[in-house]
């Protein structure tokens, strides 16, 4: 209910652009906002790139099999301006990430909240819509 009111209020405020949250492409066409997954794994690669960063996580299942997940995040400049610096992502560190699963069936997700080895948390990407 609360969110509905906010949507209505926003309509009244007026917004110029098409997709400011994710910048330049549709979130909902790519990711399933109803499928949030939690991944605990080791950072194997970081692409601090535009238009979006990608963090690769090696996630081990109960049988020891490793699956690599690619998690997309905000643009680098946006992250920097929210206090999420590149230095927070260290290859070899174990982190826990929540993410919205990709709709294309691949091991890709839209990263949301990352929990770092010291327990601190940062949002890597937007809330699903």
């Amino acid at each position: 209910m609360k969110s509905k009111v906010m949507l209505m209020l926003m309509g009244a405020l007026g917004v110029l652009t098409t997709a400011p949250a994710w910048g330049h492409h549709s979130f909902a066409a790519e990711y399933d906002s109803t499928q949030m997954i939690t991944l605990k794994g080791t950072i194997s690669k970081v692409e601090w790139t535009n238009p979006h960063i990608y963090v690769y996580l090696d996630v081990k299942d109960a049988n020891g099999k490793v699956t690599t997940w690619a998690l997309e995040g905000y643009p680098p400049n946006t992250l920097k301006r929210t206090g999420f610096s590149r230095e927070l992502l260290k290859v070899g560190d174990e982190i826990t990430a929540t993410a919205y699963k990709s709709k294309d069936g691949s091991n890709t997700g839209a990263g949301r909240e990352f929990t770092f080895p010291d327990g601190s948390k940062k949002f890597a990407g937007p809330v699903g819509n």
Partner: protein
Amino acid sequence: MKTPLIGAIFLTASAMLVAQTAAPAPEATAKPIPRTVDGHPDLTGTWQAGGVSINGEPGAPPLHPLAPTKYRPPARQPIPYQDWAKTKQKTFTVLDDPTSKCLLPGVPRIVGMPMPMEIVQTPKEVVILYESFRAYRRIPINDKLEHPDDLTPTWMGDSVGRWEGDTFVVDVTGFNDKTWLAGLGSIHTEKLHVIERYHLNDDDTISYTANVEDPGSLTKPWVTGVVLRRPVDVRVEEYECIENNPDNEHIRKAMELKQSNKQ
């Protein structure tokens, strides 16, 4: 119809409201607007329309909350399309969005992107440097708003400006027909003509409006706009959009998967 793009608008929009309620900042105080030596309002500086870095989001207030402003953009209105354009609009998917391929967003769409822009104001010319898509606009000041007579259509069009009282008015024409105005499939023709107004408010914000005319696709002018804020501790930086942009491949696969699941 609620499209994914529209959904994204609401997402940011609601995030902005959350930020405004969750992270109260001191009320802005009215003060005399800064002026250049020639007496015009001084628009120089870094400005931004929205995005999580200035609005915050649920669970993450911005690092530097901005004081609320009493100024509001014009009420949102649908683009008044002619029938053929309305029909054509429905044939597009998000994969067709030029900006998803890192192509220039055009005017006025670029003004609302969630990244900063820097206005450099001189007596003869105003230059806007956009972080988004590394775009720039040169806006020569010309009281008759005369454009060069050798224009060929471009993504950002040709801009000329003049001061009307305290408002900087920019006339933009010479567009190609490849950009979108706002939202899924929001096409236009090469007859697009945009009149922008930049008005510096007394609380360090700019009220920006765009009067969008296109006798080729619209039934009447469409008005849109934003209130531009000064982000704290932010400068325009590099954004090389084409560097690593696999999203459309994922979206195409997701669409194919959805289609094959239906069959």
